[in-house]
């Protein structure tokens, strides 16, 4: 059963829509990410779920309850803000006690829960500290403890890692994911960082220009992008101009640089139409790595960039440029600039999309 259901959720401001007809079902205990560039409507969607913004139209359900009209304090939804919003005039213990006192729990119970919560987030003994005495990572843990201690039905996280430096961000990514898994709390995570979304999520909803453009597991989103936007927003991709010539089973047949090849593609690709062929740099096979089944294309090496674990090549394929990446393993073939080589890819790892 789905835990959160958004039905035709729309928010318009004056002339434009911040969020347009978003329909989503998020399962119980699921870690769901809303991923998109700034201004795509992901934060507005989150704030509507939290109750800070009233939708122009549409509904929000939690379980069987329509919560669209409920004020935030009656939604039982916890939220962690980008800047953590630790109350500066209260110490850590008072911050965590805030929600519990409002629930009129007995003092002993509050004290017990504060201690347990601080232990859970690894901040035992931090009771008396104030916000200004905490690092960014510590503030985030306090913000999480403050929310989790009230045992909300749903946890919302609004870009919680964006204010942290890179090292800490990596660490917190896994820490938050582990905590979420342990508590099995339905979580909606808003981010513009594809790495965070891919690493942490059970499913991702990619948003662009106020709409959800694709929903799927991290693997589906990365490997089977449905639109050029998703392709370009998530990871690096080669986007090549091709012409559609027909279909072969459930694959599309396209012509690239005068060569006919198969690619995965939706049935609505019409023969004769121009399209884009999307291939990830890591899926491009070069030289001896190329098998028999793959189409073989002649390319010229333009440059080779050594990146440690990876070696990156810029290649010229007819009139188009293409980027390839190879793992820098033992005995791997290296190609100097100017070298003429054969390249190709598994058709199952290439995607034809409407231009």
């Amino acid at each position: 059963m789905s835990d959160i259901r958004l039905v035709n959720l729309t928010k318009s401001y004056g002339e434009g829509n911040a969020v347009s007809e978003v329909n989503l079902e998020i399962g119980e205990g699921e870690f769901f990410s809303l991923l998109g560039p700034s201004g795509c409507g992901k934060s507005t969607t989150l704030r509507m779920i939290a109750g800070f913004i009233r939708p122009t139209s549409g509904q929000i359900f939690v379980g069987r309850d329509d919560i669209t009209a409920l004020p935030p304090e009656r939604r039982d939804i916890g939220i962690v803000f980008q800047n953590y919003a630790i109350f500066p005039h209260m110490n850590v213990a008072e911050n965590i006690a805030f929600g519990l006192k409002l629930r009129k729990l007995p003092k002993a119970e509050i004290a017990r829960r504060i201690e347990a919560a601080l232990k859970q987030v690894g901040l035992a003994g931090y009771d008396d500290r104030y916000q200004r005495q905490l690092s960014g990572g510590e503030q985030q843990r306090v913000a999480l403890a403050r929310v989790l201690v009230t045992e909300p039905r749903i946890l919302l996280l609004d870009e919680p890692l964006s204010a942290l430096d890179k090292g800490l961000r990596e660490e917190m990514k896994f820490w938050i994911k582990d905590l979420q898994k342990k508590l099995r709390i339905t979580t909606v995570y808003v981010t513009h960082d594809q790495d965070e979304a891919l690493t942490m999520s059970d499913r991702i909803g990619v948003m662009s220009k106020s709409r959800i453009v694709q929903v799927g597991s991290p693997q589906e989103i990365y490997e089977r992008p449905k639109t050029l936007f998703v392709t370009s927003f998530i990871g690096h991709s080669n986007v090549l101009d091709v012409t559609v010539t027909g279909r072969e089973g459930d694959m599309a047949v396209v012509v690239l640089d005068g060569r006919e090849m198969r690619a995965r593609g939706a049935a609505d690709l019409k023969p004769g139409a121009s399209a884009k062929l999307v291939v990830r740099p890591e899926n491009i096979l070069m030289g001896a790595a190329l098998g028999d089944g793959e189409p073989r294309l002649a390319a010229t090496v333009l440059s080779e960039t050594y990146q440690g674990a990876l070696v990156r090549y810029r290649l010229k394929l007819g009139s188009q440029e293409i980027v390839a990446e190879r793992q820098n393993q033992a005995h791997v073939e290296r190609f100097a600039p100017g070298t003429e080589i054969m390249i190709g890819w598994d058709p199952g790892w290439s995607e034809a999309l409407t231009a």
Partner: protein
Amino acid sequence: MRDEAAVSLLFKAVAMLTLVVLLLPVVIVVLAGLNAGDYLTFPPKGLSLRWVVAFLGSATFMSAYVYSFVLALVATLISTVIGTLASLYLSRSRSGAAAALRGFFMLPVVLPGVVLGLALYIFYVTTDIGLARTFAGLLIGHVLVTCPFVIATVTASMVGFDLSLEEAARSLGASPWTAFRKITLRLIAPGISAGAIFAFIVSFGQFETTLFLTVPNHEPLPMAMYISLRYKFEPTAAAAGIFAIALVALSTVVSSRLVSLRRVFRA
């Protein structure tokens, strides 16, 4: 610790001069009030507490002092509440009306007090709404004059106020009122206290607007001092000035102590 040496000597000298110019009248009033002579003169002819005693024994001055105190207190209470509410609106509303209203609310500061007093007086009299020469009418005048000070300080303390603090409180289960009381109000309290002190001081010393609105036989202290000087030129008025200064100084010290204690508590 700030590095004192970094402040240039010239700057220090100018600051010192300004301070002297500002404080000199205060010193003169205090000395004049401690005059041993029969008339208000400076420098005083010897020091004595004679006029201080006269002030304390004067029914006119003492009742004026209490009257001004009560008036300032009530005006401050009303201004603080109204001014704080207005600041909340001004700092949170994104509508164009807010920008226009901000200027409008500040008008009483820009407008000469005499003009405001005269305007109110004419309004009270011509509309015959029973406010002319009443305590309520005078109070309205004082609220108008003191409110901008509260609005200015509270609005300043709202700058950079993080709204997500209030939202966090709401999602933790607080009603809008509880979130405001337990979060916002606590955080802007220093601004509100500062505004209240300003309002009190301004109301206690208000003269020009008061001139038109006083209730017959119930003069506030500044009026009483003025009347006394016009007819007698006795140092009692200066002695009253000592007590007025003392009250203002005391309220400032007490309030700033309260505010900074809160700061210490927060640190």
